[in-house]
Every structure is written in C-alpha cells, then in structure tokens.
C-alpha cells in the first residue's frame, strides 16, 4: 500500500467517524469565526449548530519543566462566532470526571484560549509567547464556574462533615459585616489581602492574563471576558467570550492556541495538553 492510498483510507475512515456521530458538522483546518449580530453565551445555543468546527489535536506540554509526561485529552473541538467586537469560542472535549472541588492534590478541569497580543507576521512562541512577544490568555476553570453558578464559597462544600470550632473573625466582640471583622478575616487570608484573583468572590469563571514566556503569566487588566461551562456525561462544553484580539478587523487572520487541563490527571499550570498555533479567520459580515 503506498502512502497516498493509506492517506485516502485514513481520511475516509476519519470522515466516517465524524459523520457517524455528528452528521451535519463541517470541519475546517482552521478556526473560522462566523459573524453574527450577537455572540451566543450558552454552550447549547442553537447558533453553534450553524458554525463549522475545528478539531484541534492536543499535544503534551513537554517542553518546559514541570512537563506533562502522559497524554490525556486528545482533542478539543472548537467553534467560533464574532459580532465584530467580541469573539466567542466554544471549546468541547471529552472528560468523564467532573473535577471542580479544590483541595490538596486535587486539581480543576480547565481550559484556555491564547492569542498574540499584537497582529504581526512574526508570531510569538505558541508556548505562552516570549520576551517582547506577549500573548493574551483567557483562562476558565471548573471550580470558578461552580462558584458563579451559585455554589457557596465555603469549606463545607468541600468537606461536608467538617466541624470547625471557630475563627478569630467570628469572635463575639466583632460586629458582623463590620470593617473590623473584614480586617480580621483578611488577616488570615494573605492572598486576598494582596488582591490575588485566586480568591473569591468571583464574578466570572474566567480571568484575563498575559504572558511573555513560560512562567511569566500575570493578570491583565480585566477585559470583560465571560464564560459559561457545562458538563455533560461525556465532557465539557465551554464558551469563552473575549474582546476581539487587538487590531483584528473582520476579514483578517491571526493565530489562536488552546489548552485543556484534566483535573483527574493532576494537570495544573505547566502540566497541560495544548495545541500549537491554529490559524483564526475572522469572517466579516460581507464574507459570510
């Protein structure tokens, strides 16, 4: 069997599998953002059915320590819709377990969308950019989603049987909700005192970040990114909405990259499955 025939068979099998489970889906080799009047925020919005899908193969993050040594999530299926100001990406991946309770040695299901901060021919390294080659990252996490969906930010949610004698900020001498009480509670939560966004209360399940290379991830000024993630028995479906990448007019192209963390495999930070750059085409209203 020569290579061409082999390729044909492979492709035929591939389309069979694809058509087997979702008959109407057109797949594309790049992410094509279709322009609509409004971007849908819900993962199950009917608008997504009209949009082509890019199945992005996920690779191990095996370039910088700590690396991920065992592959987990194989693929993330991406669709995109823009309204000319914002772009929404729907990321879907297979995942049997829902990991959204934090704790020692417990990690969260998560995903992220990355774009170059500047539109230029010489793109940053897909692994979180490099010096002077900034990338913008929008990061979604399952426990933040649970919090936004109404799960109380309380230890009882993680350990329902926990019994706690008391906290200093619950002292009788401190008036409930008073400044003195908040001050006392903050004293024992230094990350909150420093404004670290790891700490709730949380308004959105996403955070805007920038990076200039591995290890340099830092908070970006909140850019109003939104997200909604829903877990089915088979996996996650997450819509991440962010403002259009800088200078990206309808009709233009840039690059986009994705990452997925499987909490059950203790994936966190650098230990993740990720894609390389994938071309992103912003369809204008006229090019629809």
């Amino acid at each position, binding site marked *: 069997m020569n290579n061409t025939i082999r390729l044909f068979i492979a492709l035929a099998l591939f389309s069979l599998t694809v058509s087997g489970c979702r008959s109407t889906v057109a797949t594309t080799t790049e992410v094509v953002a279709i322009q609509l009047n409004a971007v849908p925020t819900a993962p199950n919005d009917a608008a997504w059915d009209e949009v082509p899908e890019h199945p992005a193969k996920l690779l191990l993050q095996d370039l910088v*320590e700590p690396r991920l040594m065992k592959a987990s999530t194989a693929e993330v299926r991406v669709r995109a819709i823009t309204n000319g100001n914002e772009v929404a990406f729907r990321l879907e991946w297979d995942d049997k377990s829902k990991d959204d309770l934090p704790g*020692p040695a417990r990690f969260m299901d998560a995903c992220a969308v990355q774009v170059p901060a500047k539109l230029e021919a010489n793109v940053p390294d897909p692994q979180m950019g490099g010096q002077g080659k900034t990338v913008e990252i929008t990061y979604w996490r399952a426990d933040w989603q649970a919090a936004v969906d109404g799960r109380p930010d309380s230890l009882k949610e993680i350990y329902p049987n926990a019994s706690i004698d008391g906290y200093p900020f619950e002292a009788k001498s401190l008036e409930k909700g008073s400044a003195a009480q908040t001050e006392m509670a903050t004293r024992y*939560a230094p*990350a909150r005192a420093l404004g670290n966004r790891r700490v709730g209360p949380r308004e959105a399940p996403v955070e805007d970040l920038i990076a200039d290379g591995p*290890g340099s991830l830092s908070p970006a000024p909140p850019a109003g990114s939104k997200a909604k993630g829903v877990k089915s028995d088979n996996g996650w479906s997450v819509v991440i909405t962010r403002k259009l990448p800088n200078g990206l007019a309808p009709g233009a192209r840039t690059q986009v990259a994705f990452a997925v963390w499987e909490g059950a495999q203790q994936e966190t930070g650098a230990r993740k499955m990720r894609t390389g750059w994938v071309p992103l085409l912003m369809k204008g209203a006229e090019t629809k």
Partner: protein
Amino acid sequence: MARVHNWQLGREMSYWYPESRPNKQFAAVFDTNKCIACQTCTLACKTTWTSGVGQEYMLWNNVETKPYGFYPLAWDLKLLEMLDGQKWSEKEYEGQKLHTYEGQTIFESAPAGERVLGWRPEDIDYAYPNVGEDDCAGQVDGGASFSLQHMAQHMAWFYYLARICNHCTYPACLAACPRGSIYKRPEDGIVLVDQGRCRGYQECVKGCPYKKVFFNAMTGTSEKCIACFPKIEQGIQPQCFENCIGKIRLAGFINTPDKAQADNPIDYLVHIRKVALPLFPQLGLEPNVYYIPPIHVPHSFTKQMFGPGVDDAVKTYRNAPNDPDLQGLLALFGSSEQMMTRWRRQGDFVSGMRDDGSEAVRVPIKEPVHVRQPYDRLYQITRTNCP
C-alpha cells in the same frame, strides 16, 4: 541544573538555580531530648498564623512521635523509599572525620519532566496529625517498667520530633515552582511564598520533602511557615521558640562551616561541637533547623534521619555535664525571647547577646536546687513532692 556546594553532603550537587547564599541565614537548634510533646509550639503557631478559613488542617509547626508518628502520613518514609542508595563515605583528614554523601539527592534523582523528586499528599494524609503518638518502636512486655535499661533491651523507644519549615539553603519548594512565586529573602534566608503571585499549582507541596508547604483550598494558594519574620525583624525569636515549654529551641543565624564563629551559638553547636545535625541531609536541601539527636534511640534509626554525625553528636551531648561551655550554651535555650546571635560563658554564668553586642540575658548554668519540705509550717499543711 547548576552545580552548587552543599556542605552537609561534603560535596557539590545539582540544583535548579545557581548558588546564591543570603547575607544571613536564619537557623535553629532543637534539642529532641528535651521535647515533651506538649504541642504548645503547635498551638502558638496555629493561633498566630493559621486560624483562617482554609487553614484548618495546616500545622506549620507540628510535633510527631517517632518512629510511628507523621504529619502528613508517612511523609518521610514515602520519599525515602523513592530515593535509593543513601550511602555516606567517611575519611579522616587532620584528625577530623569528613563525611561525603555518595547517593543521590532529590534534585539529582528528579525523574524526566520534573524539577525534583517528590510526591503529593492527599487531604486524607493530613487527617491524622496525632497518629503514632507515644507509640513505642517495640512491644513492652506485660509488667515491664520504663527504665532506660528496658528500652535498650526491648527496643521500646520513641522520641518527639518537632518540625517547622527548614528555610533550606536549597529549597525544593522554590525550585519546583514554575513561576518563581517562592523566594528566599537575601537579608535572612527566610523562604516565603509570594501570596500575590502564587497560582496554586501545588508544585511546591509536591516538591518539599518535609511537606511544609500547604495548599489553602479557600484562597487557592499555597502557604507556609514564615519563621515569624515580623518578630525576627525586631530581634525576637519566632512564636514556637518563645512559647516552647521544654525550652528545646534556640533561633539564630548560621554561617558556612569555613566561616564558623565560636561566639555564634548556632555555629558553635552545629559546626564547632557538631552536636546538632540537619534533618535528612541526604535529600540535598541543606535544611537549617538542626537537631540534637535523641540519645536513647538506636543509631541505625537516627543515622538515617540526621546523617552520619550521630555517634559523635550523642557522645558529645552525653558528656555535657563535664563540658561547661556546652552545658552553658544549652542553658541559654528558652532563657529569653530575644534573638541571641552571640554568647559567652563567664564562670558559672552564660550570657546571650544581641546583634549589637548588648546583653539580652544572663543565666546560671546550674539552677540552684530547692528541696521543699513535705510539711509547710506557714500554712500548716503537708504537700506531696513528685520525684
């Protein structure tokens, strides 16, 4: 990986970052023979630093009974099992014993893709802080009393190991963090997690072999012992030192062996008299809490825990009653809340001095003994004296 010098190993080793020693290095000596496991230190720390939401399970200071006590569960055994060939060699040089570690450190045996060799405790591993408390190594036969002789015969020994972060010269927590959120203060060598920068990846928790970084599920960041740096900055010893009932602890600063100063209490005990030894030096972190090993425990056990200097350390310590300087310095433990970075013995008294040379405290080496008569004439009652 860079090549750095680790004097506790007697050799160079690999570390994630190049050698960069702080201007001063916070250090401590704990005398295991004096600890009574009252846990006052644990509570002093707990009420000061970890009374917040998400910190419930955290014990930055803990006291465990060896051999069966651990916090978290089996923290040392798990790693020792992963690290093979922990062999030391010994050479004589100008009448001094020189020990070299011939095995691999946790940095040198890091598996592919990792920065250090480590493992992750789960929440259940933290659920038994009192496991093995007061459990003997061996069986005590029915009716046997607890004389030292019996302990030797029956191998029925145990001892208390008080533990805090070692503010290591080569911290594994710091090496393991992929985003540089952990730093070692150049002014005193205290190792801190930047609570603004930490993203809660828990790589430090996995990397620290002593399991002295803890993940806080409610703040989403990792937290650890800060050596009460606000106190140290004011010349006062940390909470677990100041409140220690057994007076087992002395805080100070340590020099490298080539720069050891006889009037620096830590240098004197660690470098000059070699009576205080690091905890699991073979792991390669150059930890800076030094232990006077328990004298009644089989050396095969304490050698694995404190290194090859155990025989000599125990011999020196046992001889303290005939050794006025050593006995004198040991009397300084727990005698003042102040940081005493220098000391001096004058006759039957020993003084601890502050950085500027002023005297912080002066204590008699031997306290006067008062024998109280069972019958108290003043109150006309009889009291029982406990032996």
